[in-house]
Each structure stands twice: as C-alpha cells, then as structure tokens.
C-alpha cells in the first residue's frame, strides 16, 4: 500500500464560505476520535467518480487538538481536472468518504521566537490550524493575508474579529499589497516566515527574504500543485512490464494506479518527493511541474515526479 494510513469518514457539514470556497466537515464514520495533528498538516481526500478515483491534498484548517472533526476548505477551480468541482457539486452531507491520516510537510519550527505567516488566497487554510496551535501553546505569531477582494477573503472577518492586533488583510482590488520588503526587514532575530499561496507570492517572499539575509532554515513554504490536464501520452513501465496510456484529464500517477501499479506517493502535489521515479529511456520533452527536483535534475531527463509532471514525445520508459 502506498500513501498514508486511511480513515473512513462521513461528511457532516458543507458550508459555502465565499463564491469560490466551500468548507467540508468530516467525522469518523465509526464514531471514534480522529487523530490529533500539527498545524500545517494536510489530508489526501479520495474522490470516487464514475470511472475515476481522484486524490487531492487539502490542508486541515480545524483546531489540531479537536479530535471530534476535521475541516477542510476547497476552492473551486473550473479550469482544473475536476477534483475541486467534484467536491463542490457531487459531495453531500451524509456521504461516506476515505481520507488519509494527517501528513505534515509544512510544520511549524517550534524553536521560533516568532512565527510570521504570509497567505495568498486559499493558502490561508494551513495557517488557520497553525494559528489555533500557536494560540494554545502561547506562541507569538502574526498573519499577513492577501486576497483579491473583501468578498473573496475566506475567513478574513473571523480572523480579524478574533485577533485584531495580529491579523493584517490586504485586498488587491483596493490597491492594497503586502509590503514584503518592509515586513521581512523588520523582524526580530529568531523569526520564522511561512508562506502559502500562489507560486508568484512564494517566489517573491523567498527571494526577498534571501536578499535580506534570512537563513534558509527560517523560510518555509508550501504550494500544492494540482495536476494539470495535458495531451495524452504513452509510458512503458519496465518493472511492471506494462505499457499504459495517460489520458488528457489524468495524471501519470493516476494512470499507473488505474493500471494496478502500486506506486508510492504522499502529497500528490509535487512537494514531498515520495513518488520520484527514475527515467530509463525517453525521446521527447518532459513537462516538469513539481518543486521537488531541482533545475539540474529537471534538465537531466533522469527523473520525473508522476503526481504532477507530464511528457510529450515518442518514447518514455520508467523504472516502475
């Protein structure tokens, strides 16, 4: 078996939060307690459609100490392969679903003198759990949250009401921007910065922090990539001795699973490195989308992350 241990849960509440974001509450189907977790953890939700099983990671946003329920928020992405649309349109209260045990690839560094959270859009969700954890443990924190508009700033009003002096919200439709330079320049020694949101925001924060001399270890980021659709392609799996077809709307990892190949994975979003696969032979071009492999590895043609990356060309042979 690949991936984390599974939990059988029932959907107990579905709440629209903004025009794009909907919140889902899961409780254990057997009535027992869910495992505790640490702020920043995600769960992989299995979405069983007619002919497909999609598995998408979503950050847990509920109180990590609350074992009665898990809560996630899903932003509807009409351009994607349908995972978020499935959650928004096909999931109903009372449905039974399978989710993974919590996995944390974005945990707090508990040595920090101060936690500085920077969120863009739906990237707010891991911070909701981290804020609850920090409040419970008495840690110092500060949030800067960028959103397109007040109407789309999920949980912004709640956060401001509860933590008026620690939460700062920026609405780009009103010309408001996080002044990253200033923010990162004035932090006390021992501050750790965490950023979650669009790639442009993550890159900007990382670059600015590095330019200001922040230690690499004090900069944390998480960006889950949804697998993008693309042209169909064929792959030969050398160990399994199979040739499989990767459809337009499925990832290479999903195509392997559909063909009965037990490939390792954890995050399914190009971040954790578990599904790293050796390339034996290829003629064509890789479309690397992960941020696990570095630029040299991407250029080498020796490895691929099948959860998010694709291929265009004549031949691809993988060591799987």
């Amino acid at each position: 078996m690949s991936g984390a241990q599974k939990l059988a849960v029932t959907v107990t509440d579905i709440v629209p939060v903004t025009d794009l974001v909907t919140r889902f509450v899961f409780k254990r189907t057997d009535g027992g307690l869910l495992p505790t977790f640490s702020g920043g953890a995600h769960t992989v939700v299995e979405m069983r459609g007619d002919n497909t099983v999609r598995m998408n990671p979503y950050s847990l946003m509920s109180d990590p100490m609350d074992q009665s329920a898990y809560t996630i928020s899903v932003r509807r992405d009409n351009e994607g392969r349908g995972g978020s649309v499935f959650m928004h349109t096909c999931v109903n209260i009372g449905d039974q679903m399978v989710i993974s045990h919590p996995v944390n690839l974005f945990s707090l560094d508990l040595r920090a003198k101060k936690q500085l959270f920077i969120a863009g859009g739906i990237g707010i969700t891991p911070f909701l759990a981290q804020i609850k954890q920090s409040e419970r443990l008495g840690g110092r924190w500060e949030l800067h949250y960028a959103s397109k508009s007040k109407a789309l700033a999920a949980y912004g009003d709640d956060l401001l009401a509860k933590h008026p002096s620690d939460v700062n919200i920026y609405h780009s439709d009103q010309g408001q921007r996080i002044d990253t330079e200033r923010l990162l320049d004035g932090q006390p020694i021992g501050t750790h910065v965490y950023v979650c949101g669009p790639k442009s925001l993550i890159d900007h924060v990382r670059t600015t922090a590095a330019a200001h001399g922040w230690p690499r270890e004090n900069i944390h980021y998480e960006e889950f990539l949804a697998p993008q659709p693309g042209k169909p392609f064929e792959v030969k799996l050398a160990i399994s001795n199979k040739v499989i077809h990767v459809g337009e709307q499925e990832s290479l990892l999903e195509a392997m699973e559909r063909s009965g190949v037990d490939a390792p994975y954890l995050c399914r979003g190009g971040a954790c490195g578990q599904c790293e696969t050796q390339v034996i032979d290829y003629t064509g071009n890789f479309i690397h989308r992960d941020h696990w492999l570095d630029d040299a590895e991407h250029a080498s043609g020796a490895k691929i992350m099948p959860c998010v990356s694709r291929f265009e060309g004549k031949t691809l042979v993988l060591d799987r």
Partner: protein
Amino acid sequence: MTLQFNDETFRDDYSFHNSDRAIKRFPFPFHEDSYMYSVNMEQHRGGPADSIYEKRFDVDEHYLSEMRDRAMVLADDPLRCQSLPHMTLAGWDLLELVMVSKSEDYPDMFELHRDGDTWRWVNKPLGIDHTFTFLDEATLPYGPMEYIARQTQGDFCVLDQRDDNLWMDAGMITTQADWSLDFDLGMNFFEWHAPVPLAHEKGIFVRALKFLLNIQQGAPARRLNWTMTVNPLLDTSPENYHKWGIQKTSVTPDNIGAKQHLRVELQTFFRLPRSNALVFPIRCYLCSFQDLMTAPKWGRRLHRVIRDLPDELATYKGFSDNRSMMLDYLSTFDDGQPTSDGIWADLDTEPALIP
C-alpha cells in the same frame, strides 16, 4: 496473563536473570547465518502472540527492576535526561502515546481516564495514581517526557524534524550501548551516526533518513540492532566507561557462558502527531550466552555470525578482544547442521545439537 516481576539488579551483584518465558521470547537479531548492516525496517503493528513485537510498548518481567535502575542512573547523572525548550510539546506527545498504548494493551496494569484536559493515570505495578492537566507541566513532578520515561522500559530519543533532517533535541538515555545523549544533544542524523563504520559508505544512512522522515501517523516502524555486553549491565554509557569497560577483562573460558550477554535493541519509530516530531524508543533486551544456547538454532547461528563478522564491526561493537574466546565457546554449539530462516528459535522443528 499476570506478570511476575523479577527482583533483580543490573549492577554490583548482577542478579538479573531471564525466566524460561523471557528466553523463549528473546529477540534474537539474526535472521540468517551472517550479518551486515541493512535498512532492515518493517511495520510495527503487532506480531506473534506473547512475542516482544506483540504490543506497542512491551512490558516484561524486568519492568520494576529496570525502572529502579533508571532512577539510580538519573540520581547520579541528571544529564541522562534532557529536553531542549522547543521539545516540550513532543514530550506531551510521547506521554500520550505511551499512556494510550499501555492502557489499551495492558488494561490489567495501566489505566488512563481522560475528561477533557484532566487526565488520571493509574500505573498499578509502580503504585502510581495521578491526576494531572494535559499540557500543563506544573501538574507533573517532572517534564512530560521524563515523567513517562521513568515509567517505561527502554531509552527514548525524541527527534525534531526540520530542514529535511532529524535532530536529537530531547531524550531519556540510561540503557545505552556506549553513546551519550549529553554529547549528541542537538546533533542531526548524520552527525550522531558519524562514528559508525562501513554503513556510511554503503549509503545506509541516506536511505534510512529518507525512510524515517516519511514515517507517518498511524504507521510506526521497527528494527532490531545488537551488540555485546559483559555482565547484565543496562547502563553501558561513555560517562561510566571507567566502571564497566574493565569488566570485559573478567571473562574467562569458565565463566563466559554466564557473563557474556547478547544485547539486543528493539528500535521503534513513531510519528508524534501534535509536534510532528519522531520518537525513537530503544528497548534493550539482555540474554546470557548460556541461556541462548538452550535454543539449538541460536547456538549454531550465533557461532557463524560472530565467526564471519568483519573486524571493523567487532571493534565498533567492543568485543574484538574477547572474540576468540567467544568463538571457542560458541563452536561447541555448532554441529554444522543447517538452520531455518528467520529470527525465531523454532524449538519444535530445529534438530537437537549433535554432540
């Protein structure tokens, strides 16, 4: 099953002893007739009935005496238990893991009653009935890691996970095979393993770290490790080497069967949910050569393993000086017959020794 606890010592007169049951369930670490390092991990989810693998934290006949020995070590040297400030949450994680596991696995000996953050812990063998507030250190006599580790057999390394590495940032280490928490505190995985010969070249530690970093909640892992100890000493620490090192010279052909012990560590690995740290319990089991020789398969195999072991490993494990004496003794229990696969003694199926 009602467990009878031994009244025994791991120092001075060394009255430590294994019952027949303890010998039978001893974790003999060699699954074949030779040994080399490997990333020999497996899932830690139960095992054969009454084996040391069966429960998450094995409690055996040595429990009370081991806890008494631990208290003596700590009284002499408080630095055997240390926790850097950011590891307190992981200490609570460990306390919760042990209390939940033991109360579920041994309900006749341990009870945990939780009402919100008010927890009542009952440890019948040690005579403890204590109500405290979870996450409030002021309600415990020690920090949470020390509190529970004083009631649980085995050493505990509590490892912080950050920057794609593991850090030895907390631990309770009183039954160690010649390494020091005080020395290793704050080191990362490669730093504290630096003295181990041969394994670095084989890439063992890079692979082991990758495995450990990915240990998930609900999916603990385990492996066995081993060394040799003269006299049934739990505390073979560098700090006390001047006391126990010299004892290696006390072995003679006449007393080696009783004095020489195979020391086996059951190492387990659990992801700690609230802190995302990793706990690495190292449980030490000791068995004298003469007790091991009651299983014909173990006698044959131990002789072959010790005979063929690379010199570097015998030196690292600290028995190169006594190796030839060991082989003289062990060879009398090896009649050359084949052995079955796996670590279990297979007493019912393995042939008796041909004298």
